[in-house]
């Protein structure tokens, strides 16, 4: 399954087409009687769908909560309006417009293009700021930066009277020359484009890497994924779609004022996004539909006079509905109605050929001759010395154990090696290349992959995809290594039957094996394992010995493993390092270590 066009392209395209046709058919049916109000309702809904799909591309894939997308919408809307309004009208509304904008006269399509270009430029700058601030799922900094955009754009729109005519009146241009949205063809075209873009982006390399980082930023980084580029791509695409939708919105309304693209619209679009499921394109559209229907219904109800119901049926019911929907879904069903389900998932299951597990491949990988060295590593946390001149050396082809009492500094040493903790002094080298000071993803790309004490899987992604995204990274940065195919790794980890299940649904032992296989997918020279058997029964941890050995053999990597289970350590290790209070107190074969008096003292305490 190196590339699976059916899953990645054909089924999603068909699914997108199906969704679009469904919307198109529904719209045509609903407006068949030619009623003007239902016509405008449908038009607005389709335009909102474009904007919300734009939000989905960024928020859904990256998990970064942006409140600023409607700010991009405001920029696009104003740019579109100022370019498209005829010079005669502009002379009346904004005669003093700067940069000679009062004279320019563009068609709606040209205006839309100008709007798109301008917002993309702004989005690029915001994207740089977001990545500088370390944007990741739920990051506060991203919320502040995007809110700032929304506010600044709003204030500029209110105060730059020469350009925008201020907040009271706004700009109006209805009708816009001879151009109209009659027949809604432009809306349908943009909508079908937005659906396909949003759906297919999820299957692209950028989309998949962004999703991995959304699930667990730290785990993605130590697997070599630096999501900055992918998040930028997602942002630019997303802003492009939001801009197109916003220009349509202004076009359709025939006017613009600062309130049109502010908190209310942010609330409306975000609610639409989360109700159906922000990680799903189908879910996004379902959300748009439900919220549109609900808003319309509550708006109609609020004007009705039903005895005994007057306490409920009054103005503001729509806002209650929106706020309530947002709150209710966050409390009861935060992933939305559909979660990350797509129409084409169903389609794919129908269309795919029966799969059989790959035949066990003979070990072809030549053992590498890599050497990993950690020399004299010292780390302080405040006044606490976690590591004191600790050194470790491992060569590919051997399994090196790292044991010691709790707090001895084992995990800290692993964190220093993988770049998660900066050491005060000491250096890390892999085959003579200094890794000290590199970023975690840089270190992963150089050839170290690790697992975690409390495992950190990409929980919403499938078993296969957990391995797949890391494999995707490895095919670019670890070309020198021969990488086993994804399905071979899945089988090797004994997870073939669970290959399409979400990682979050796995039992403990399977999750541990998946994390091991995921680390192996990175094609490392060394696998660094942090307590692979913690929480396992004796039987399971004996199995883990084979599991680790065969996985290391499959990819030809050396192993450094931390564990407390002495049976496991003696069963698997060629050499063992013993750490105590940050210092290496003994090195040797498991047999030598077990009779070393210093080790016994560290573990059991001593009387002298």
């Amino acid at each position, binding site marked *: 399954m190196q590339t699976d066009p059916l899953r990645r392209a054909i089924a999603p395209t068909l699914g997108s087409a199906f969704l679009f046709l469904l919307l198109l058919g529904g719209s045509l049916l609903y407006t068949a009687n030619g009623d003007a109000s239902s016509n405008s309702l449908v038009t607005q809904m389709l335009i909102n769908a474009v904007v919300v799909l734009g939000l989905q591309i960024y928020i859904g894939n990256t998990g970064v*909560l942006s409140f600023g997308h409607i700010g991009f919408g405001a920029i696009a809307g104003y740019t579109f309006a100022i370019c498209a309004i005829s010079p005669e009208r502009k002379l009346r509304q904004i005669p003093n417009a700067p940069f000679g904008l009062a004279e320019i006269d563009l068609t709606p399509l040209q205006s839309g293009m100008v709007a798109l270009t301008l917002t993309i430029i702004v989005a690029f700058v915001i994207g740089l700021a977001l990545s500088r601030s370390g944007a990741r799922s739920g990051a506060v900094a991203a919320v*502040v*930066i995007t809110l700032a955009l929304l506010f600044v754009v709003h204030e500029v729109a209110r105060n730059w009277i020469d350009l925008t005519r201020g907040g009271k009146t706004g700009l109006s241009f209805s009708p816009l020359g001879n151009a109209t949205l009659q027949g809604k063809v432009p809306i349908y075209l943009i909508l079908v484009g937005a659906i396909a873009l949003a759906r297919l982006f999820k299957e692209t390399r950028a989309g998949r890497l962004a999703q991995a980082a959304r699930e667990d930023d730290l785990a993605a980084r130590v697997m070599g994924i630096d999501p900055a580029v992918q998040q930028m791509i997602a942002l630019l695409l997303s802003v492009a779609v939001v801009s197109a939708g916003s220009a349509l919105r202004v076009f359709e309304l025939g006017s613009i004022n600062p309130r049109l693209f502010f908190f209310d619209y942010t*609330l409306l679009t975000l609610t639409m996004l989360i109700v159906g499921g922000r990680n799903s394109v189908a879910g996004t559209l379902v959300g748009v539909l439900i919220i549109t229907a609900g808003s319309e219904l509550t708006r109609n109800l609020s004007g009705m006079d039903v005895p005994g119901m007057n306490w409920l049926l009054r*103005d503001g019911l729509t806002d209650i509905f929106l706020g309530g929907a947002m709150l209710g879904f966050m409390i009861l069903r935060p992933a939305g109605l559909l979660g990350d389900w797509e129409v084409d998932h169903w389609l794919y299951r129908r269309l795919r050929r029966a799969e059989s597990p790959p035949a066990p491949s003979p070990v072809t990988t030549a053992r590498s001759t890599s050497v990993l060295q950690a020399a004299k590593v010292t780390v302080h946390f405040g006044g606490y010395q976690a590591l004191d001149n600790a050194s470790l050396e491992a060569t590919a082809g051997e399994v090196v154990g790292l044991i010691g009492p709790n707090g001895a500094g084992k995990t800290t040493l692993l964190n220093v090696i993988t770049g998660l903790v900066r050491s005060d002094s000491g250096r890390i080298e892999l085959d003579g290349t200094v890794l000290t000071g590199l970023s975690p993803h840089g270190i992963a790309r150089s050839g170290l992959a690790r697992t975690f004490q409390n495992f950190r899987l990409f929980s919403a992604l499938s078993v296969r995809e957990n391995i797949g995204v890391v494999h995707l990274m490895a095919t670019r940065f670890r070309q020198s290594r021969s990488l086993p195919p994804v399905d071979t790794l899945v089988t090797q980890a004994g997870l073939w039957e669970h290959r399409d299940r979400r990682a979050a649904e796995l039992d403990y032992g399977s999750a541990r094996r998946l994390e091991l296989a995921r680390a192996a997918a990175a094609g490392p020279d060394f696998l660094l394992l942090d307590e692979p058997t913690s929480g396992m029964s004796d039987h399971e941890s004996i199995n883990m010995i084979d599991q680790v050995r065969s996985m290391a053999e499959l990819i030809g990597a050396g192993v450094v493993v931390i564990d407390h289970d002495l049976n496991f350590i003696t069963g698997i290790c060629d050499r063992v390092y013993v750490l105590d209070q940050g210092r290496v107190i003994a090195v040797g074969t498991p047999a030598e270590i077990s009779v070393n008096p210093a080790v016994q003292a560290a573990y059991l305490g001593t009387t002298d």
Partner: protein
Amino acid sequence: MIELIQQIIDGLGRGGIYALLALGIAVIFGVMHLINFAHGELITVSAYTSYWLFASGFNWWFIAPAIIVVAVLTAVIIEFVAFRWVRGAPDFTMLMTSFGVHFLVQALFVMYVSANFRQFPRPGWIFDTWRIGDLSLEVFDLAVIAATLVTLLGTYWLLQRTMFGVSLRAAAEDFDTARLMGIRSNRVIRGAFILSGVLAGVAAIFWLMRSGQAGPTAGLNPMLKGVLAALIGGLGSLSGAVLGGITLGLVEVLLISRLPGGTAGLTDGIVFLLIALLFVFRPQGLITVRRVERV
């Protein structure tokens, strides 16, 4: 020089209110890791309370303590209705929940009162000034500064010297460990909301004395100021929140007095922009709280 001193006093007056709001937000962030975008709703509810009590013939001496009681009740109700259910949820869910509460409360007031703002009388003395030589000081600013100091000292005493304060600080430091040590999470969280309600209530008294109006969006501005001040202070840090509030107040006053005419309307935008830039270059806030993710 005289002008600068006056501006500083003015800035401290504003900053004091922001500090109280920010502290309430920081207290809740400490125990729940939640940025409470619904904090402003405590001000909204207080505003309507003042309006109704005035309409019923009460004066500020009665209304001021009533505001604190109402703010505390509102905070506890919001915790019970919404935040209790998303404890420990991913950051995304908690952020959206607090925004949901913000919008829902706003909508309730639109529905059951009106979308329009209502006025109520401001106390007569808030425009009085004291003259000391060339210096003319607004009595109101001095009152705010005094009240802020008293409240902060009270809070400090509460946090340092009482059992509740110790549990709150422990929970803010490491919630899971605090629970293992026998601190009851429900109590601590409810306590944190009560404390944030008291702080918001005190802030609301002065905010409303100055604004003299109630409306569904009355809480938006104070909420933003409080959140921004807490962000400047690094969110988790309580002393950081206070410093953040004072900083924000001073920066605003200096900006307003120095911006060329016509652009004064942009003050809020510029403040927001500055804070966004702060986050771009110092994502951990002005006052750093070391928060190392354990792996």
